């Protein structure tokens, strides 16, 4: 295993952010110290052990700090404002391109396509909302709103979440039980929603970790 492969494997489970950058720098420096003593990369890496366990030890070293309910609510509000703006832009653009107005770019499409197209757009957009949360949280640990508020989604161990966890987290939105789901966050110890308890995930502060 090369140094880069090892470091990559350790970092795979660690959320992006200052912690991850620091762990990477530390690892490279400390493995470098052993190599300087005349050890081979392989020997040096063996001293650090299984990459997954090392990542767990690093994550367990610093306690997580739950994001407050207010902080999470503001983040969610920003997300919905951004999504609403994106949705309006989409529908208006389609309307302007194909709509019945004299200024439409493709007026010949107006009668046939436009109303249906708008309906399709709206439908797609409604699907896109949970889709956005699932993908953003899986790929970058946070949505735009969460980024703005300095919070992100992690497993209870502090590790990055899987695609499955990210998907199940958003089921209340699709099933329209999100009000009940969110109420849990007001009363649970770590401000977890019901579906966060199920998926063993939490929303925590990035900076305080």
């Amino acid at each position, binding site marked *: 295993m090369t140094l880069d492969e090892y470091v990559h494997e350790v970092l795979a489970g660690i959320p992006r952010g200052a912690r991850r950058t620091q762990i990477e720098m530390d690892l490279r420096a*400390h493995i470098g*110290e*052993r190599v300087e003593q005349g050890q081979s990369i392989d020997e040096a890496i063996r*001293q650090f052990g299984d990459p997954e366990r090392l990542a767990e030890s690093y994550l*367990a070293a610093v306690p*997580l700090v739950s994001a407050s309910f207010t902080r999470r609510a503001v983040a969610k509000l920003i997300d919905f404002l951004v999504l609403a703006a994106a949705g309006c832009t989409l529908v208006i653009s389609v309307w302007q391109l194909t709509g019945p107005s004299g200024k439409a770019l493709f007026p010949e499409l107006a009668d046939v396509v436009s109303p249906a197209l708008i309906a399709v757009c709206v439908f797609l957009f409604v699907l896109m909302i949970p889709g956005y949360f699932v993908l953003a949280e899986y790929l970058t640990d946070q949505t735009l709103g969460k980024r703005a508020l300095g919070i992100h989604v992690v497993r209870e161990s502090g590790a990055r979440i899987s695609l499955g966890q990210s998907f199940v987290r958003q089921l209340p939105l699709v099933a329209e039980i999100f009000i009940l789901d969110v109420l849990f966050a007001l009363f649970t110890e770590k*401000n977890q929603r019901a579906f966060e308890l199920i998926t063993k995930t939490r929303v925590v502060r990035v900076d305080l970790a």
Partner: protein
Amino acid sequence: MGVDQDQGGEGKRSIERELRRGSLELAVLHVLSWGEAYGYEIVTKLVGKTNGALEITDGTLYPILYRLEAAGLVNVRWETLKRGVPRKYYQLTKAGRSELARLTDEWSTFAEAMTRLLHQQAEDR
């Protein structure tokens, strides 16, 4: 905006693991009280002074140093060498020194009590 600290962690850690972690933390703080050191130095000192009894590896040491750094108990200094990767030096902060004193006290009391207990014979009770 309020935050709530999560003190406990998972709660399923074994006593042995906690004891080990606690004692290693004390050991690392103690080694650093001799003066600034970089990671590899700390490992060799810990292994050397205890004849390897502490069984410390890089994989256990570095997460501890990482925690001490996050808790403000150690300061770090990067030194760029002429060749190779920069080296990271650790030194105790003021908070680190008082934590070391506190842990040393706690450890001595605990160890003395345990030794006394374990040497007690049945008839002495």
